[in-house]
């Protein structure tokens, strides 16, 4: 039995949540559906760790679905590049499922909770399938599965606050337009090359030169993925979708959904197309680089002026996504590795920050704005300490994970002759301290509401403590993350040069 599991691991990471989601929808008991969801995410996390061991001890896995060999059949590719987002998504989904056991019943009607867990598992299955697949159209299918499940999850926030419905509608329309643009790009590339397999596409594209349909197809694909990855200025759906979703859902989406699309962007830019091609160099230098710098500053400045705390954190997510695309846009091996490091660390940081804020709003049972944050830090010491550590990580203070990723991005930009990029990164990190200090000052130094007795619930602060501990651990000993990212970038870019 175990060798069947070991042989089929690449598909089991996707199928396990997918099948369990269909079973959970039939179960009417809330606690039982939570237990099944928890065990499914735990088993998926164990599978992804086994895959990590397999990829690093042996070689990359290419799994042909239905025994039809690629390039005619659909193949699932697990190599050192794709193992990074798989580990992120399965780890975050497991920890968030522990967190959601107390948070979910506070915001959603108890008759809909098992259906929400079914959508939860469907979104996780869609995200893991997105990063595992090696076929361009299968990627579109998983992109839409994860996107539609996320829209339905965000719309569940409409039970408490009706703005969640409008946020979900905007997310749906913009996401569908983006996915359709991606499909147009795939269609154009299929028309020129005749294949849909990503590895085969890269071989055939290298033989074609000077074809306008190739440039058009590339453009459509990149713009479609940038809508899903919330790169500025196509990020309009993100702030309201994360702010008005149910709290546990915003933790899951903020930490995983855009990361998977950013990984796909890196894959298309570097693996399918040739890095030394003038098309890619021009795109990186004239399109993605300016947009990333704009994203960094626009996100931070909008966060400074925002009064609603969840919207503030969503705007700062846009700035951090700007850092990741900036690292990809510099285009050297070191900078792409730095991009992967920040991909991993930002998932941990944003997950923890959203968890801290939602546990505060759970205890006081109101929507958190900058005004009713006063004094809550004194009432909830554990949550407050985790919040401070993770905001230090967001600003890039040494001894935390955020410092490591900013260090590597700055090192890579200096070694690629971009001193001005490094100074802009430092400037926007300094700006981000403004809104972080605003929140910390209100939490601790202001007088709180009188006669408020808060007892912190262990199922709520233990996942928060785990992620904060991971933040500090990966800040002190980052060798695991850094080595994996450098190996990933080597495999992504090294095939060509």
């Amino acid at each position, binding site marked *: 039995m175990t060798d069947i599991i070991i042989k089929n691991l690449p*598909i089991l990471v996707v199928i396990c949540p997918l099948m369990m989601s269909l079973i959970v929808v039939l179960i009417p008991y809330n606690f039982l559906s939570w237990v099944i969801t928890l065990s499914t995410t735990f088993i998926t996390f164990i599978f992804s760790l086994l895959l990590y061991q397999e990829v690093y001890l042996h070689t990359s896995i290419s799994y042909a679905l*239905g*025994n039809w060999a690629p390039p005619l059949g659909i193949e699932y590719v697990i190599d050192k590049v794709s193992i990074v987002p798989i580990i992120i998504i399965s780890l975050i989904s497991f920890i968030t499922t522990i967190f959601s056991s107390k948070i979910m019943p506070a915001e959603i009607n108890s008759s809909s909770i098992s259906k929400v867990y079914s959508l939860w598992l469907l979104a996780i299955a869609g995200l893991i399938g997105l990063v595992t697949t090696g076929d361009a159209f299968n990627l579109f299918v998983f992109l839409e599965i994860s996107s539609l499940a996320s829209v339905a999850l965000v719309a569940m926030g409409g039970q408490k606050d009706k703005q969640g419905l409008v946020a979900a509608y905007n997310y749906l329309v913009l996401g569908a337009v983006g996915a359709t643009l991606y499909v147009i790009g795939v269609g154009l590339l299929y028309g020129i090359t005749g294949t849909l397999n990503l590895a085969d596409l890269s071989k055939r594209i290298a033989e074609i030169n000077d074809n306008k349909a190739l440039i058009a197809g590339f453009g459509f694909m990149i713009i479609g993925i940038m809508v899903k990855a919330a790169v500025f200025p196509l990020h309009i759906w993100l702030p309201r979708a994360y702010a008005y979703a149910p709290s546990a859902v915003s933790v899951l989406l903020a930490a995983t959904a855009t990361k998977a699309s950013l990984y796909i962007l890196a894959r298309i830019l570097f693996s399918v197309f040739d890095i030394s091609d003038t098309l890619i160099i021009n795109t990186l230098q004239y399109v993605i680089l300016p947009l990333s710098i704009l994203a960094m500053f626009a996100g931070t400045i909008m966060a400074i002026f925002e009064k609603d705390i969840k919207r503030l954190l969503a705007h700062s997510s846009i700035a951090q996504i700007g850092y990741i695309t900036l690292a990809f846009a510099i285009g050297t091996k070191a900078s792409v590795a730095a991009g992967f490091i920040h991909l991993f660390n930002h998932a941990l940081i944003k997950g923890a920050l959203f968890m801290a804020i939602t546990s505060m709003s759970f205890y006081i049972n109101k929507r958190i704005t900058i005004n009713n944050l006063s004094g809550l830090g004194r009432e909830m010491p554990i949550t407050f300490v985790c919040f401070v550590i993770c905001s230090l990580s967001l600003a890039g203070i040494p001894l935390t994970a955020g410092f490591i990723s900013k260090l590597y991005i700055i090192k890579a930009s200096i070694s690629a002759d971009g001193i001005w990029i490094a100074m802009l990164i430092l400037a926007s990190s300094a700006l981000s301290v403004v809104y972080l200090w605003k929140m910390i000052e209100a939490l601790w130094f202001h007088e709180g509401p009188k006669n408020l007795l808060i007892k912190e619930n262990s199922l709520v602060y233990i996942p928060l403590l785990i992620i904060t501990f991971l933040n500090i651990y990966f800040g002190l000993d980052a060798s695991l993350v850094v080595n994996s990212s450098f190996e990933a970038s080597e495999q992504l870019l090294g095939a060509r040069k």
Partner: protein
Amino acid sequence: MDKNPILRIATKILFAPIILFGLYVQFHGDFGPGGGFQAGVIFASAFILYAIVFGLEKGKELFPLNINLFLLALGGILYGGVGIASMLLGEEFLSYNVLGTSNQAGQHIGILLVEFGVGLTVSNVMIALFYAFADFKRSGETK
């Protein structure tokens, strides 16, 4: 609408041939145009026609909601079950070759079962969507 004799009699006459046509399209998917999705939609349209003409209550009596939800999940589980069965028999996920005695028989059985699962899920999704939209009251509560 059920007072009108033409609509009533036409629905009663048409109901069975629509379902028959749906089953025909479903099982002829590997010889001609057809397959799971198209057959599922045709199958669902028979029940939706009945519910439109005779009223939502009688439509729900004919095809209750909990059977609907159960068959919906069953279709997807059937699809995944075929894949898992081929995994347990030693091959990759969704390789139909091992499901029968020869390669061709295995492919035939595999495609038939998978398309049947798709048809079940699609028809129940369409009927469930119709029930959800028709049941929606202004106050924002569905049953």
